[in-house]
C-alpha cells in the first residue's frame, strides 16, 4: 500500500506543485518570523551584554517610590563621597560615576533637536560605555554624541554643534566621538550627548551620579564587588553584576521583539489558515478525480482503512516535503529581514544568524499538521468510494453538483442574523474597547455563514454577473457556465481569497474612517493653521528668581495674581499640573532642574511655556487672523473627581474654538462661566453651579454649556481668569494656536510664524497641514505594512485558485479538445479560463470587500464615538484591480496547458 501511494505521488507530482507552494509560503512565514525575531533578540542581547559585561558591578540610583502623599519622590543621586568610598574598597580596582542631566542640542537650522532634549551625561574611565568612533570628550569645548543622536541630527565627528546652557545661552562644542548606547531605554528615546565630567554639571546643573560602574580588583569575583558596593550604598542604590544588568536590559528589549514576533505570527497564522483551505480543496478535487483509481484499489481488496491511510500518508509526505522547503525559505527570509530591519530596530547589522531548533521544528510541525488536518475530510470521503465505481465509465465529475440543502441555507442565514444582532448590539450601547472585539466575533460568525452558503453565493452572484458577460462572446459565456459547474469547489477556492480581502478592506475602512474622524475633529475644534509647543520635558530657564511677568515676558502679564515670586516649572501633559498629584512620569529627566529650581522638585513631567512676546508678535502680524494660547491644569472638583481644566486665553469661545454642544452654547463661557464635557457633567445641567478647588482656593462657577466629549477622563473649559485664580502660577501659555488670515499667502504666514520663534530655539512649530500629513503618512505606513503582511495570504489564495483551475482543466481535457475541434481558437480557450478565474477572484474579493466594509465600519463606529465613516474608494478600486490581475495570473498556467494539449491526443485518451 505504501508503495502504491508513493508511486501515485511520483506520477502526479505536478498536481501538487501549487499545494506545495501554498504550504511552503505559509511555513516560510512562520519560520522566517522565528529566525528573524531570534536573531534580533540575540543581537540585542549581544549589544547590551557587550557594554554591561565590560564592568563587574553596576550601581544604579534607586527607583522612584511613592512618598507619603502618594506622589513619586525622586531619590537623591549618588554622591561623590560614595564614589570615593567605593574606589577605596579593596574589592574594587576602578570605579567611575555617571552624571546625567538634559541639554538642548540645536540642529543645523538652529532649532532644538527632537521632541525631548537629549540626555546629557559624562562617560569616563571605568564606565560601561566607550566611544564607538573617535574619542570621548576631555575638554570643556568637546562633546560626543550618541550614535542615534548623530544619525538624527546629521552631525558627525569633527562638526561644530551648539548646545544651550541652563541660562539658555548658546555654547559651541566640537564633536570628538560617537558613543553607541544600544537599546538602553534611558538613551533610546531622546538620544544623548556626552560631555567631560565637569562640563556636564556646568551645562545641566546636575550633580551627583545616577550610576556608578566598578571593575573588580585581582582575585575578587563579581559577586564580591557587588556585595561590597551594596554595603557602601545601602538603600540608595540598586547594585548588580554587569552580567545581570545586561540580562535584565536584554530582557526588556526582548519584550519588544516578542510583541513583534507575536504580531508577525498572527499574520503567519492567517497565511497558514488560507493555505489550509487551499490544501483541503486540492485534496478534495484530487480524490474526486481519482475515484476510479481508489475504487480499483478497493476492488483488488484494499480495506477502507487502507485507503484512508493511503490518502493521509500522501498528505504527510506532501506536508513534510513542502514544510522542509518552507523552513529553508524561511531561514533565508529571516536572514534577509534581520539584515534589513536590524539597523532600524537599534541593533547592529552583520550579526550571526540564530536558527533555533524551535524555529525549524515549529515550521515543520505547523506545515505538516495543517496539511494532514486539511486532507482529513477528503481522505474520509475517499473511503466512501464504492468498489463498483471502478467499472463505471465517466466516474469523474463531469456532471453538475447537486443543489444546496435547506439545512445549509437555514444555518447560513442564522449565522448572518446572529452576526447582525451582535453588530446592532455594539452600535446601540457604548461598549468601549470591547466593541471591536465583539465586532471581530460577529465577523467570524458571518464568515462561517459565507463558508456554509459559499456554493449558493457563487451560483447566485454568477447568475447576476453572468447576464452581461454571456453577451460578450462565446468564451465568456462558457466561462460563466463553467464557473458554476462545481460551486462547492469554486466557493472553497474563492473563500481563501475572501479571508485576505475581508481583513485588508476592514483595516482600510477603519484606517480611513479614523483619519477622517480625527481630521474632522481637528478642523472643527481648532480651525487653526499652526501650533507652537515648547519642547517636551524642557525646564524653564532658571532665571535669577525673577517674576516671569517682568523679566521673561516683558510685562504683558495677565491682570491678576501673577507676581507670586518664585519661578515654577509649571504645566504638564494631560495628567495635570497639580504638583502634589502629578506622578513622576519622566522622573529621570527632571534631575536637570534640581538645584536650580526649587518648586520643580516634584513637578516631574514638565512642559515649558511660551513667552508672551511670541503671542504679542504674532497678533501684530497682518497674515495672522487669530492667535490664542492654551493653558491646562488638573484638579479636584467639588464632587471629588479629578478633571482637566483648560483655558484658551485670547480665543473667542464658539468662534476660534468650536465643539458639538449637548446643551447650552460654548460662546457663553466667560469669567465665572464654564463648559463641561459630557463625561464630567454627570447630574449637572446648564445653569447649575459647579465647584472647582485647587490648593485651598475654591471657585464656584456657573455651567454655561455641556459639550460632547470622550468618556472617562472628562474635562472643563473655562475662562483664563478663573484658571488663573485656581492656578496662580500658570501665567504663560503651554501652547499657542495660530489661525492665518483668509487671504494670507501661505509662505508669508509660515515665515511670520517662524520669525516669531527665532529668539526661542526651543519652541517647536508645527503646521496643522504638516500634522495631518504626518498623521496620514503614519496611517499609510501602517496600511502598507499590514497589506504586505496579508499579501502572502492573498498570494497563497491565488495559488489555490490557479490550482483549482488547473485541476478543472485536467478534468475537462476531452471537453476542451471537442471545443477546439468545433472551431474554438486557442486564444478563445485561454480567454475562457481567464474569465472564469477572474470571475472567481472577483467574487471572492467582492464578498471580502463587502464583509470588510461592514465590519470595518462596525469596528470603527463602536470604538470611536462620533466616527465619520469614510469609504476608501481608491483603495477598494485597487483591491478590485488586484483581484482581476490575480485572476489573470491564476489562469496563465492552466490556460497554457489547456491550449497546448493536442486535440487528437485528448480525444484518444479516455
Amino acid at each position, binding site marked *: 500500500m505504501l508503495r502504491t501511494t508513493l508511486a501515485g505521488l511520483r506520477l502526479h507530482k505536478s498536481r501538487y506543485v501549487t499545494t506545495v507552494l501554498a504550504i511552503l509560503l505559509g511555513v516560510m512565514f512562520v519560520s522566517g518570523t522565528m529566525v528573524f525575531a531570534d536573531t534580533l533578540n540575540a543581537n540585542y542581547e549581544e549589544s547590551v551584554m557587550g557594554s554591561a559585561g565590560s564592568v563587574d558591578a553596576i550601581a544604579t540610583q534607586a527607583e522612584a517610590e511613592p512618598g507619603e502623599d502618594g506622589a513619586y519622590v525622586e531619590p537623591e543621586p549618588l554622591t561623590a563621597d560614595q564614589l570615593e568610598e567605593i574606589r577605596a574598597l579593596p574589592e574594587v580596582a576602578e570605579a567611575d560615576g555617571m552624571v546625567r542631566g538634559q541639554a538642548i542640542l540645536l540642529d543645523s537650522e538652529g532649532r532644538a533637536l527632537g521632541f525631548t532634549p537629549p540626555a546629557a551625561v559624562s562617560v569616563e574611565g571605568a564606565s560601561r560605555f566607550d566611544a564607538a568612533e573617535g574619542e570621548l570628550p576631555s575638554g570643556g569645548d568637546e562633546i560626543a554624541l550618541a550614535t542615534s543622536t548623530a544619525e538624527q541630527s546629521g552631525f558627525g565627528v569633527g562638526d561644530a554643534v551648539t548646545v544651550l546652557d541652563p541660562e539658555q545661552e548658546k555654547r559651541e562644542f566640537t564633536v570628538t566621538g560617537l558613543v553607541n548606547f544600544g537599546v538602553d531605554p534611558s538613551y533610546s528615546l531622546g538620544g544623548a550627548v556626552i560631555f567631560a565630567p565637569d562640563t556636564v554639571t556646568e551645562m545641566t546643573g546636575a550633580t551627583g551620579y545616577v550610576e556608578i560602574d566598578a571593575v573588580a580588583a585581582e582575585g575578587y569575583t563579581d559577586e564580591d564587588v557587588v556585595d561590597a558596593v551594596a554595603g557602601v550604598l545601602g538603600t540608595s542604590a540598586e547594585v548588580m553584576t554587569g552580567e545581570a544588568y545586561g540580562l535584565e536590559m536584554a530582557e526588556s528589549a526582548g519584550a519588544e521583539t516578542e510583541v513583534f514576533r507575536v504580531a508577525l505570527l498572527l499574520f503567519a497564522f492567517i497565511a497558514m489558515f488560507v493555505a489550509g483551505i487551499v490544501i483541503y480543496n486540492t485534496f478534495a478535487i484530487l480524490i474526486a478525480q481519482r475515484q476510479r483509481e481508489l475504487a480499483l484499489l478497493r476492488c483488488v481488496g484494499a480495506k477502507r482503512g487502507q485507503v484512508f491511510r493511503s490518502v493521509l500518508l500522501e498528505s504527510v509526505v506532501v506536508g513534510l516535503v513542502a514544510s522542509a522547503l518552507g523552513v529553508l525559505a524561511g531561514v533565508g527570509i529571516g536572514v534577509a529581514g534581520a539584515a534589513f530591519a536590524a539597523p532600524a530596530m537599534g541593533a547592529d547589522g552583520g550579526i550571526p544568524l540564530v536558527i533555533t531548533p524551535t524555529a525549524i521544528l515549529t515550521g515543520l510541525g505547523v506545515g505538516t499538521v495543517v496539511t494532514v488536518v486539511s486532507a482529513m475530510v477528503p481522505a474520509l470521503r475517499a473511503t466512501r468510494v464504492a468498489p463498483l465505481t471502478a467499472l463505471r*465509465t*465517466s466516474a469523474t465529475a*463531469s*456532471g*453538475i453538483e447537486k443543489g444546496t440543502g435547506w439545512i445549509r441555507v437555514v444555518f447560513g442565514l442564522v449565522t448572518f442574523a446572529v452576526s447582525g444582532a451582535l453588530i446592532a448590539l455594539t452600535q446601540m450601547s457604548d461598549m468601549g474597547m470591547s466593541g471591536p472585539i465583539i465586532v471581530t466575533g460577529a465577523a467570524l460568525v458571518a464568515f462561517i455563514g459565507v463558508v456554509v452558503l459559499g456554493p449558493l453565493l457563487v451560483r447566485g452572484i454568477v447568475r447576476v454577473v453572468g447576464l452581461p458577460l454571456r453577451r460578450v*462572446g*462565446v468564451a465568456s*459565456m*462558457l466561462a460563466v*457556465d*463553467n464557473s*458554476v*459547474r462545481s460551486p462547492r469547489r469554486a466557493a472553497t477556492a474563492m473563500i481563501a481569497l475572501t479571508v485576505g480581502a475581508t481583513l485588508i478592506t476592514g483595516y482600510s475602512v477603519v484606517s480611513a474612517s479614523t483619519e477622517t474622524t480625527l481630521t474632522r475633529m481637528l478642523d472643527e475644534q481648532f480651525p487653526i493653521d499652526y501650533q507652537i509647543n515648547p519642547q517636551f520635558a524642557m525646564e524653564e530657564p532658571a532665571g535669577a528668581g525673577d517674576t516671569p511677568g517682568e523679566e521673561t515676558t516683558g510685562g504683558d502679564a495677565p491682570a491678576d495674581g501673577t507676581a507670586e515670586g518664585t519661578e515654577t516649572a509649571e504645566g504638564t501633559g494631560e495628567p495635570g499640573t497639580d504638583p502634589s498629584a502629578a506622578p513622576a512620569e519622566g522622573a529621570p529627566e527632571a534631575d536637570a532642574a534640581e538645584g536650580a529650581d526649587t518648586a520643580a522638585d516634584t513637578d516631574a513631567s514638565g512642559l515649558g511655556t511660551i513667552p508672551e512676546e511670541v503671542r504679542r508678535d504674532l497678533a501684530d502680524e497682518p497674515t495672522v487672523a487669530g492667535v490664542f494660547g492654551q493653558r491646562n491644569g488638573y484638579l479636584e472638583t467639588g464632587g471629588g473627581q479629578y478633571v482637566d481644566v483648560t483655558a484658551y486665553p485670547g480665543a473667542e469661545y464658539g468662534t476660534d474654538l468650536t465643539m458639538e454642544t449637548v446643551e447650552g452654547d460654548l460662546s457663553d463661557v466667560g469669567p465665572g462661566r464654564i463648559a463641561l464635557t459630557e463625561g464630567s457633567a454627570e447630574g449637572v445641567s446648564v445653569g447649575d453651579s459647579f465647584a472647582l478647588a485647587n490648593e485651598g482656593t475654591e471657585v464656584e462657577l456657573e455651567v454655561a454649556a455641556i459639550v460632547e466629549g470622550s468618556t472617562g477622563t472628562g474635562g472643563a473649559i473655562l475662562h483664563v481668569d478663573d484658571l488663573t485664580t485656581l492656578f496662580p502660577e500658570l501665567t504663560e501659555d503651554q501652547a499657542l494656536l495660530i489661525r492665518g488670515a483668509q487671504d494670507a499667502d501661505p509662505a508669508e504666514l509660515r515665515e511670520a510664524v517662524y520669525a516669531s520663534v527665532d529668539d526661542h530655539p526651543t519652541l517647536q512649530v508645527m503646521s496643522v497641514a504638516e500634522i495631518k500629513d504626518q498623521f496620514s503618512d503614519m496611517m499609510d505606513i501602517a496600511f502598507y505594512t499590514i497589506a504586505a503582511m496579508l499579501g502572502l495570504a492573498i498570494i497563497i489564495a491565488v495559488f489555490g485558485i490557479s490550482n483549482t483551475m488547473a485541476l478543472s482543466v485536467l478534468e475537462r481535457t*476531452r*471537453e476542451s479538445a*471537442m*471545443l*477546439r*475541434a*468545433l*472551431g*474554438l*481558437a*486557442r486564444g*478563445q480557450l485561454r480567454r475562457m479560463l481567464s474569465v472564469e478565474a477572474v470571475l472567481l477572484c472577483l467574487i471572492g474579493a467582492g464578498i471580502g470587500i463587502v464583509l470588510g466594509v461592514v465590519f470595518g465600519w462596525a469596528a470603527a463606529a463602536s470604538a470611536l464615538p462620533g466616527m465619520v465613516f469614510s469609504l476608501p474608494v481608491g483603495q477598494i478600486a485597487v483591491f478590485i484591480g488586484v483581484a482581476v490581475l490575480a485572476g489573470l495570473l491564476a489562469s496563465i498556467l492552466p490556460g497554457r496547458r489547456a491550449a497546448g494539449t493536442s*486535440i*487528437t491526443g485528448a*480525444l*484518444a485518451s479516455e
Partner: protein
Amino acid sequence: MTASSVQPVPSATAPPVVVARGLTKTYDTGGSQVHALAGVDVDFHRGAFTAIMGPSGSGKSTLMHCLAGLDVPTSGTVHLGRTQITGLRDAELTLLRRDRIGFIFQSFNLLPMLTAEQNILLPSQIAKRRVDQQRFDHIIDVVGLRDRLDHLPAKLSGGQQQRVAVARALLNAPEVVYADEPTGNLDSRSGAEVLAFLRDSAKDLDQTIVMVTHDPVAASYADRVVFLRDGQLVDEVTDPNPELVSARLLKLEA
C-alpha cells in the same frame, strides 16, 4: 442497391469535396517508427455517406483526424474543396473546422453545463454566425428533439445525446461531417436511429458524411465503405450490406 440510380451519385463531372493524396503519418515511439498511414489516396464526393473501416490499429482514426485538420500528416496533401488544408497554420485550421467541417464524436460530445439547444447552437455562437431558423426547425424535428431542447445532457439518454451531436454537426451545413464511431456507446436500437438519420440527411440535405466505424452493421448504412489495413486502403465496397462488409473485414483480418 436498387436505389443507386436515384441517389445524387458521385458523378465524374462534379469535383470531390475531400481529396487526399499520398497521405502518410509516422510516429516515433522510442526508436522504432510506426506507420499509421502509409500512402493513402481517397476522394469523398458531395452528398455521399462513406464509412471507413478496418481492424484496430489500421489507422482509420488517424486518417479521419488528418482529413479533418485535427492532425497533421507526415506527408501528402488533403484538399477540402479548393482549399489545401495540409500546410495551414493552427489558427487557419481552427477557422476551417469552425466554418466548413462538422464533427460527431463517440462520447463526451456535449458540454454538460449547456442545454441540448445551447449545445446545438454552440458552433454558430463560436463562429458568431446567424442561425438559419428554418433549417434548425427542420433538423430538430427530424431528430425528434423538439421537446428535449431545454434539457441538460445529463437528463438525456445516450441515443438522444448523440442525436443532439448530429443536429449540431448538421446545423451549419458544413462541407463535410466527420463522425468518429458515433454509435460506439449506444445500444443497437438507438444506434440504428442515429445511423438512419445520418443516411437520410446525406440524401435529403445533400450532406457529405465520413464515418469511422468498426461495426459492419453501422457501415452498411453508408453508400460506400472503404477498408484500411496497416495504414493503406485495401478494399472498397459500394452499396454495402452487413454480411458483405463482415466478410470483407474477416478477410482483411485473416
